[in-house]
């Protein structure tokens, strides 16, 4: 210590007391800030705790080491090792009880003076105090003193020769005869008693670690090493010891004492303290000189003993209790992971708790679990769901998977309803896909194969190929005024309008059905805008009136209708001026763009085209009507890249299911994580290169893994079926064959050759009714198939007592009708066997057997077949 290097000792029995020793000893009590006991003069240690100085002891100069008496009584007895090798007993803040008084000031003097390096009280026989001293040519370096021993008369003989310390002997407080003397002509740097036996002492000697056995002092176990400083036993593993040398810590297992079981990464500066955490298993804190951090090594998951072949797992990290350089630290004896740190200078103390590493895991559903210290926390998504917070995408996907989202292949647009019907992007996406599908089907009827490829490539590509555009200037409907608004027509533009959903099939541009449907959905403003864009101002006004008078309608719509009716194409009219400025105050984007359209110069419709709140379909349709052949592709390009950038699914209308579409979907998935929509959407892109895109394959695989993780195995199977229909290349080949014991031919191969006689064993081949098929012998060699271990019938025989067999079939072929019962009935007939003992039988029989048994049904076979099946006990969570 010698003034500069402080140390901290916690009281072994009072969790709120500790001693700081530097040039003197200071006893502190730690308590909460503002507590009545910690009044004025309390030193703040942290936000919540403060320390009060209870007592100071500066009686013992030249302190080199201090050790706190381990027993309850006397309470605050300290042994101080001095630079000249003397050990002095002293105390702090003690009421002078008799036992303590007797011991106070007692000195233990070695024959030859040299520095006392370390002290250790025996934890069991607390009268024993071991002192480790520097080397002397003729003296011992480990002295074990008995603090209860009196000044012995035999020592008084030697006292004649005592010249230098003659004064001390008078008081009778000097003891010169140790109980044990160990380690002759050696130096002792560190000591600790081993918990294995009260008479075992581990000492870090000059160049070796030695275990002295006081039951037989001529015996010692030792190992040569440099790491001899700071020996300390892990309080949680009595055989694990840490010691250090310079910057390196060595961990020893006393059962394999030949060499360190592990050495920790070397620090550039020499270590000053190494301490095991008393409250947490396998946590070692180390401190180096001139450092403001404490390095922690977590050996909790390091196996003991450590095998030679395995690389031990040690987690290393650093904590910084305060900004100043750390002089020393001490773990709190009981408070979890807590320590007090004292600065190298000025005795600044900090109360510090080492936070446990938090290990965190997302479940495949939305809940999040983390462990910290001895606590385990789970964070689940609010079940009540006030609707304010958007649900996690995993929850959404789960719900959507359960509602068979993506599986409606006929009324494709309905998928957005299956998804919840509340996402405009999904709505746009599925409508787009629906219109595309509808168009291809029409085209197929018309036998126009050339367009079919085009329609899935998106409007951007469709309008690029546009040719033969005609321009006409139409009158406002219901008005004979000639407008100077040019409108453009072409076959491709009509197709685009169809894909936007504005018009139905047929050559005419008739938006009336679309307007009706919008009115039906109460989208008055949008309907009015669409009517206006079709130059039917009266219809627009009519729609607005209707909207105003509708239930819960907005009366303001009448005002808008009024304003609309005042339309004039006079360039400098007050109406125009007012409309173009005031329209921006309209909250509804459709109302806003209506006036933008009316006040725009022909050909410059930026107010409409770049109003991002207007649906992409409407803007695209508008563009297809009013932009000329040079403007239109530019606008499409611009809008497409904008959509791709933000991952807006409405953009699929433009990109189609092309590589552009995959790019767009990629940014959508990056933004939302919705691999489900991505998978289903891109599967529609078949036949095409898009499905083979590695990104698409990745989404599909991730979605399948998700379904598996949710234990939605049936959903996953459905998805696989759906996928294999759209992408035949994804159909996996049969991987398992059952071969005959006798001829070695595959039974399933033979079955497939005779489709009505057997059952396929391929993944999707649950074909044929079990009642019909009865193959009990190998189709190749006619030898009987193995028997079921339970019913003793040959394989191929249907399960006899299955109530579900033969029922529940034959109805409703519109979907894949696999009710649970039906599926189970078929599965019951499957032949299954254990891969370990090779016994087996009907799946249904085997399953019911293992409901009550653990061992194989075959007598004398003790195979625990079911336990070997790791997934056998899992239940799918999507069973209905």
């Amino acid at each position, binding site marked *: 210590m*010698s003034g500069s290097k402080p140390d901290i000792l916690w009281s072994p029995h009072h969790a709120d007391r500790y001693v700081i020793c530097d040039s003197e000893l200071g006893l502190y009590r730690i308590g909460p800030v503002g507590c009545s006991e910690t009044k004025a003069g309390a030193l703040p240690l942290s936000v919540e705790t403060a320390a009060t100085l209870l007592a100071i002891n500066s009686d013992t100069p030249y302190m080199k080491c201090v050790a706190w008496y381990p027993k309850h009584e006397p309470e605050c007895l300290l042994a101080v090792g001095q*630079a000249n090798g003397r050990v002095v007993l002293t105390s702090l803040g003690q009421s002078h009880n008799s036992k303590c008084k007797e011991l106070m000031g007692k000195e233990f003097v070695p024959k030859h003076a040299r520095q006392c390096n370390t002290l250790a009280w025996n934890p069991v026989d607390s009268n024993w105090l071991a002192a480790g001293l*520097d*080397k002397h040519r003729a003296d011992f370096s480990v002295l074990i003193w008995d603090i209860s021993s009196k000044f012995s008369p035999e020592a008084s003989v*030697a006292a004649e020769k005592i010249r230098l310390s003659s004064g001390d002997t008078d008081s009778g407080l000097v003891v010169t005869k140790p109980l044990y003397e160990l380690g002759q002509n050696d130096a002792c740097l560190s000591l600790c008693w081993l918990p294995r036996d009260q008479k075992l002492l581990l000492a870090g000697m000059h*160049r070796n670690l030695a275990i002295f056995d006081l039951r037989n002092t001529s015996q010692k176990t*030792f190992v040569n090493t440099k790491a001899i400083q700071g020996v300390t036993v892990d309080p949680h593993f009595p055989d694990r010891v840490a010691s250090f040398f310079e910057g390196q810590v060595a961990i020893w297992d006393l059962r394999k004492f030949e060499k360190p079981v592990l050495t920790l990464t070397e620090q550039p500066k020499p270590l000053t303290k190494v301490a095991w955490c008393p409250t947490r298993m396998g946590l070692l804190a180390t401190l180096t000189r001139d450092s403001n951090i404490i390095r922690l090594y977590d050996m909790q998951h390091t196996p003991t003993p450590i095998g030679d072949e395995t690389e031990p797992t040690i987690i290393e990290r650093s904590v910084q209790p305060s900004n100043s350089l750390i002089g020393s630290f001490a773990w709190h004896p009981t408070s979890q992971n807590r320590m007090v740190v004292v600065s190298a200078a000025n005795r600044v103390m900090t109360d510090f708790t080492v936070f446990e590493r938090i290990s965190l895991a997302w479940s495949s559903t939305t809940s999040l679990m983390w462990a910290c210290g001895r606590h385990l926390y789970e964070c689940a998504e609010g079940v009540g769901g006030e609707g304010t917070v958007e649900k996690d995408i995993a929850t959404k996907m789960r719900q959507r998977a359960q509602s068979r989202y993506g599986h409606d292949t006929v009324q494709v647009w309905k998928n957005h309803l299956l998804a919840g019907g509340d996402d405009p992007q999904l709505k746009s996406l599925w409508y787009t896909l629906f219109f595309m599908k509808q168009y291809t089907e029409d085209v197929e009827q018309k036998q126009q194969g050339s367009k079919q490829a085009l329609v899935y490539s998106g409007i951007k590509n469709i309008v690029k190929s546009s040719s033969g555009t005609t321009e006409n200037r139409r009158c406002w409907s219901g008005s004979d005024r000639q407008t100077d608004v040019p409108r453009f027509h072409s076959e491709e533009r009509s197709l685009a309008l169809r894909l936007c959903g504005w018009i139905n099939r047929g050559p005419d541009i008739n938006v009336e059905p679309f307007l009706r449907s919008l009115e039906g959905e109460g989208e008055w403003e949008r309907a009015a805008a669409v009517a206006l864009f079709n130059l039917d101002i009266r219809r627009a006004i009519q729609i607005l009136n209707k909207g105003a008078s509708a239930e819960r309608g907005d009366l303001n719509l009448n005002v808008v209708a009024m304003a609309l009716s005042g339309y004039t194409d006079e360039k400098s009219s007050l109406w125009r001026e007012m409309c173009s400025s005031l329209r921006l105050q309209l909250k509804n984007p459709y109302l806003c763009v209506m006036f933008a359209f009316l006040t725009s110069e022909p050909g410059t419709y930026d107010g409409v085209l770049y109003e991002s709140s207007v649906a992409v379909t409407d803007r695209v349709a508008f563009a297809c009507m009013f932009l000329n052949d040079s403007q239109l592709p530019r606008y499409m390009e611009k809008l497409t890249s904008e959509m791709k950038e933000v991952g807006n699914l409405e953009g699929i209308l433009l990109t189609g299911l092309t590589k552009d579409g995959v790019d767009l979907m990629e940014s959508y998935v990056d933004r939302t994580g919705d691999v489900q929509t991505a998978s289903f959407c891109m599967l529609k892109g078949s036949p095409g290169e898009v499905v083979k895109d590695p990104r698409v394959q990745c989404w599909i695989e991730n979605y399948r893994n998700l379904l598996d993780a949710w234990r939605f195995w049936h959903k996953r199977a459905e998805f696989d079926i759906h996928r294999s229909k759209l992408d035949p290349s994804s159909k996996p080949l049969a991987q398992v064959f059952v071969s005959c014991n006798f001829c070695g031919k595959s039974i399933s191969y033979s079955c497939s050759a005779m489709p009505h006689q057997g059952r396929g064993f391929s993944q999707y081949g649950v074909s044929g009714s079990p009642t019909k098929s009865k193959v009990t012998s190998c189709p190749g060699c006619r030898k009987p198939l193995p028997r079921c271990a339970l019913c003793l019938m040959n394989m191929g025989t249907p399960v006899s007592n299955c109530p579900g067999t033969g029922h529940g079939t034959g109805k409703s072929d519109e979907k894949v009708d696999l009710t649970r019962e039906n599926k189970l009935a078929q599965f019951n007939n499957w032949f299954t066997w254990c891969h370990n003992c090779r016994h087996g039988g009907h799946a249904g029989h085997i399953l019911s057997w293992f409901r009550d048994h653990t061992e194989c049904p075959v007598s004398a076979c003790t195979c625990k077949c079911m336990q070997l099946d790791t997934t056998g006990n899992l239940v799918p969570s999507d069973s209905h």
Partner: protein
Amino acid sequence: MDAWSENIQKHLWFCNSCGNEVCTTIWSSYHPLLMDEMKEIAGCKFFSLTETPEDYTIIVDEEGFKELPESEHLSVAEATWLALNVVSGGGSATNSQPIGVTKIAKSVIAPLADHNISVFMLSTYQTDFILVRERDLPMVMHTLSSEFTLLRVINGETVAANSLGVTNGFVKPKLVPRPIIHPLSSPSNMFCVTSLDPDTLPSVATLLMDVMFYSGGMKEPGASSEDSGHIRFFSFSLIEGYISLVMDEQTTPRFPNNVLFTSASGELWKMVRIGGQPLGFDECGIVAQISEPLATADIPAYYISTFKFDHALVPEENIQSVIGALRTNESAGQ
């Protein structure tokens, strides 16, 4: 045998200086470093300085040797030396009194002398070092391997020294009685063998310098009365962080209280000086001549060899019997 010999892998240099002047420069060059870092002097882990009436003897390792200034006053012994150190490996708590050179006289010193290996002794407060010439090492190892586990210290790590395998040609010489050849003298001084806490070294550094270099001559008040038998002798060594001091008892009061380590018994030592004229470095058996009779008589001893002469320290109460025993041997030799 419950001891092993430890072989410190250090090359040591012997230097000798005749004049105060040179040594002062040496010391001065170390002094600031001492203040800084007391454990190691600029990487020098072996430093010993002994003042005798004739000269100053410095033993330093290679790192320290580099720091020594060139000077015509400085003579350096040819050959480099290795320090051997006997450490006790067994745990036997024998309370045998003989310590130091006496303890190893028969097991180490005598066999080396028998094999005509010249040794150089340096006893310290903590231990005894036997210095042998580097070129003699194979022979030394061969000699000692029969009774000791030989360990080599390389960069602080202790490893077993493999036998060099050179056994042929080493003939075991005949054991002959070893008479004392050189004249002996015993000055009247009483000496203290002591040490001090390295942490306190900076505070006494100036005092040490003063004692060693500036209190020279016979001007000390205590010395004037018995000029005839009183000699100047002071030894300071700092080896691997450990300090060892041998000084005249009369010098001790100059140190502050509680700085010097003392033994509980407060033992004092008297000196036997060996050699009438410089002993040189080649003659072997000198240490053995002295230590063997002491070992036989069970008398503990310190032994410090310097550039010219050897010095044995024995407990003051034993000086008469020691002189008696040695005289017997001396006369036997004549």
